[in-house]
């Protein structure tokens, strides 16, 4: 079954598409369980990812799309994925080999790297060095740098059912000025890859809009450059973990004002529409993102598209499970179109259909 999964990772993105035996992961925010964390509050999506990527005795991810190299989009890269030459990949290492990496021009050559982004940056550099050689086309070495300024790398198809169109960044957006100070670098949010995916199996087309952390100026520019039809989405990943900065700007008095064109760019709902907030639970407090105000904007967009149960179509994987526990938000894709898995919110992490053995258990003579 083709599907797209939004994993519960708190404020961060980890989105997996599985289509026709192809796997495409957009960003990663994988953290180990902390000692004081309750078992039920932590979702080890690595197991789901490995299951999706299993090819014979190996684990292979078809594409890793890195929207931008911020911590909340790259965390755990080194733990989950193989880095270095593909010849040295061993499934016994418990890692997954990425056949092809997609990045923006900024992601291919960032101004700085952090502890979290270092492994990815190094891997990209390794692959970049190979470009122009025959090795660059081998699975495990492939690298694609996407930019609106490069017509060869701004749209395409993957397999029989998926097409994609790049909406951002332009060369200008991807050109982040170096602050010269690693301690306070300039934000690279606006260099995010913004991609609209189209899934079409039969007569029904569905659209998935993934835009990293792109801010309101990028969305305003997108509004200018693309038609309503080109911006339609069935599922929208609320940019920047449901932050206000993709929908509003601050005026001179430090007040948030609606960026109407940005909101318009994000308001083209196809069908009933679903918005996924890959973030902590959205609360009406100062701990942003996610912003309660942004959620209200998305709810209005959903309500305008279809009033019925519109609040139930704003989804947050972090609280999607039973008793607001983390659970992936999964949409199945088929010739029926896009179908949200509304089955009971079990948090069972094991593929084994037996709850009695779904957590470690100690037996013994004493």
């Amino acid at each position: 079954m083709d599907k797209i999964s939004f994993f519960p990772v708190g404020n961060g993105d980890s989105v997996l598409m599985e289509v026709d035996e192809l796997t495409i992961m957009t960003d990663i925010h994988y953290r180990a369980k902390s000692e004081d964390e309750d078992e039920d509050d932590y979702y080890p999506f690595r197991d789901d990812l490995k299951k999706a990527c299993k090819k014979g005795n190996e684990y292979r991810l078809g594409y890793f799309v890195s929207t931008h190299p911020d911590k909340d989009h790259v965390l755990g890269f080194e733990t989950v994925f193989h880095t270095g030459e593909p010849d040295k990949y061993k499934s016994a290492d418990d890692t997954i080999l990425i056949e092809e990496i997609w990045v923006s021009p900024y992601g291919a050559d960032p101004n700085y790297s952090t502890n979290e982004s270092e492994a990815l940056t190094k891997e990209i550099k390794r692959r970049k060095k190979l470009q122009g050689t025959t090795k660059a086309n081998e699975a495990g070495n492939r690298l694609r740098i996407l930019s609106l300024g490069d017509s060869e790398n701004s749209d395409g198809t993957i397999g029989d059912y998926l097409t994609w169109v790049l909406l951002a960044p332009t060369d200008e957006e991807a050109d982040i000025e170096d602050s010269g100070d690693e301690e306070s670098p300039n934000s690279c949010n606006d260099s995010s890859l913004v991609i609209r995916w189209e899934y079409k199996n039969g007569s029904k087309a569905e659209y998935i809009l993934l835009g990293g952390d792109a801010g309101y100026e990028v969305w305003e520019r997108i509004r200018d450059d693309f038609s309503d039809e080109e911006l339609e989405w069935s599922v929208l990943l609320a940019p920047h973990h449901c932050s206000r900065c993709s929908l509003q700007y601050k005026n001179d008095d430090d007040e948030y004002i609606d960026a109407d064109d940005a909101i318009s760019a994000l308001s083209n709902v196809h069908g009933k529409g679903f918005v996924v907030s890959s973030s902590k639970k959205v609360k009406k407090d100062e701990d942003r993102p996610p912003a309660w105000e942004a959620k209200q904007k998305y709810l209005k967009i959903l309500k305008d598209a279809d009033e019925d149960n519109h609040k139930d179509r704003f989804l947050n994987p972090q609280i999607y499970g039973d008793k607001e526990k983390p659970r992936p938000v999964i949409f199945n894709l088929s010739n029926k179109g896009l179908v949200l898995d509304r089955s009971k919110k079990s948090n069972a992490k094991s593929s084994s259909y037996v709850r009695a053995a779904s957590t470690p258990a100690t037996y013994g003579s004493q």
Partner: protein
Amino acid sequence: MTISLWTENANPQLLASCSQSLREECAYIAAHHNVVPDSIELFENDNFELVRMLVRFGELNTPDEKRLINPEPIVLIYTKGKAGQEAPRIFSERKDFPRNLPHLNPVEDIFPSSICLDRAGKQALYDAQGITGTIGRLASWFEDTEAGQSQHDGWEPTPRGMGIVSVSLNIGAMQRFVSKLTKTSGTTYGKCALLYDKKTQNFNDLIFLLTENNIKGLSRDKKRFSLAKDYYQPYEDMHCIRDIPVVCIWASDDDIVAFHQSTLINSPDTLRRYAQEIGVDERLKYFENSILPTAKVDIGTKSLILLILAQRRPKPLIRDIPSDACGHDRSIELIPLALKISSGRSPEIEKVHQCDMVAETTNSLLGQMSGITKYVDIATIVGCGAVGSAIASQLGRLGAKHITLVDSDMFLPHNVSRHLLGQEAIGYKKSRFLKLTLERQLPVKIASKICKFQELDKTEKKKIKNNGLIIDCTAELSFTQFAYGNNDLPKLLKTEVAYEGRLGILAVEGEGHNPCIQDIKACLYKSAVTNSVIEKWLASHEQLNSASTGQNCSSSTMIMPNYVVNAHVSCFMPKIHQVIAKQVESSGFGINILNEDKFPIGWEWFDIPEFQLFVSESSNGNWDVRIHPEVLAELDKLSSQYAPIEAGGFLYGTYDRVNRTICIVHQIVPETANHKTTSITLPAAGYTIAEVEWLRKTAGLLPLLGTWHSHVNQSSKPSHKDKQRMADAAAANVDTPIPFVVLITGNDGININVVLPKNW
């Protein structure tokens, strides 16, 4: 939204006070991922137990059908005490549930919509996948309906058969005949034959025959009732035959109805209303007022007329309908109705009965069809479906002196494609006609029992015990379940033809029913680990392989040609002969594999040893835990290997809650278990490659059923820690309601505990 029908006629029931079988069924329902938590309510009346619940399904982004709500309220109706064995009927609980969708069974207006989940019938689905699979299919039904994809290969006629009165006709010829005439509505007249059993003169099982020749003889708008007599000659020997008037009323192309009509047509009023819906009410009035007095033919105390309503649909009927009509002609839907007419000078329609419509035995139908055992309930030394009749014939030719045939079914036209009997048997009970045929052909004495095996009386069962063995050729679980542990029954053999005919399976029980059929079946599933054909078969289990035999989606059979049946029976026979002749004492299973083109790959036999039987007491009765001796040997070896630290792992197999049995056929020690001298910590199940591979290859049919661990140099009695884990398991398995085994090996042997979900 909620209608009062259920509550008016049934009393609310508490889970704690309902039958054990329903309580267990409810545990599965409550744990189902498509059932809304805490939405289950129970009711009962004298005959039925009702489960009301909310079923949630996937939410479509772009639904075509917008009248469904999510979740949908559903009522399951069980015959009292039969949950777990008999499939429930499935109704919407909404008065305003749309009644014009595909795959709805016709019901009277006072009932809410009844949902049809599988062309192979609800019992076949329930037998194969239980209530869990049934509810899963229901959720898919809603999703498909919302997506407008429940009729992906054509117009799905509403299933109208009631299983008692059948009409055999050349569907394609009738569709072509009507299709030419639909510029305006109209009426034709003619005659068909009515067959019924000469011996019993039984009017309950009737079959109307309307062949292509008779269709040609239909006269339009002239009250001429004629019949091509020669056509029913083959039936004359054994049937009562009467000429019966047939009237066909069709709607004009201006009245194409593009929605389904699930109203039950079972009375003059509902007939008139349906006629109005399709625009032939004036034609029907004329028929009632002017035709009835001349058309009526008395048969005994009855007067019958066959009425066929015909209407054009917006697209051709689904491919499964066995009609050779194409394109425009194929879009004609036919609804046959048997009308009982009152006697007297002004005859009126007294009763209306919807008929099963089955395709006439034509060459093309025979080409399409294969074995017939899908709905045949056979429990006997030899069953009477395609396989059963072939085995009966083979046994007779081997020199068997006495055979008892048990089968309650009637022989229908489509059976001809794969059965030993031919079309002369149509309308007869299979077991009786097979008896007559074989006794004519062979020097064999045959007793024929027209009932289910379970319904035989004690004397008859005793006779069967003395006959030496039973060959179960049914496709149903009920006989196997009935036979389990029944020491009044002799050794049991079970045949199965599966996987689109590619697999012939023969299971042979051991002495004293050990290994039993359930043990053998678990071992057969386990062979998927090494046999890719078995693996593929198990992976395809979700789809029941069937084809319609008439226009009703409720009448279907497996697809395979007769030579496939013969190929498998030919391979079964040497083993059956060995067992009968007591040449070997082996128990186990044999598989005969054909390739995709149905060429033989080969027969292979697998011996299965006696299972070791443990009885575990539980809060609601004893459970038999049956363990493959190889598993026990492995546990023993591993316990020694790991000593002085404790060993442990997971156990896999099958279970049957009707008979309270668990069969364990496999164990896995997870690599990440933490072994210590007085304890072992097992990790969460389902993550190691060995576990994932096991569940994948066996398609989840041999699920995890418990854990085992060793007590080194100590008693196998559960420790305080073990008891705590068992309590945890009982609570946790409320979400996954299956029995959970905790097996402990110690210096005094093996201790087995069956932990049941807390809410059983």
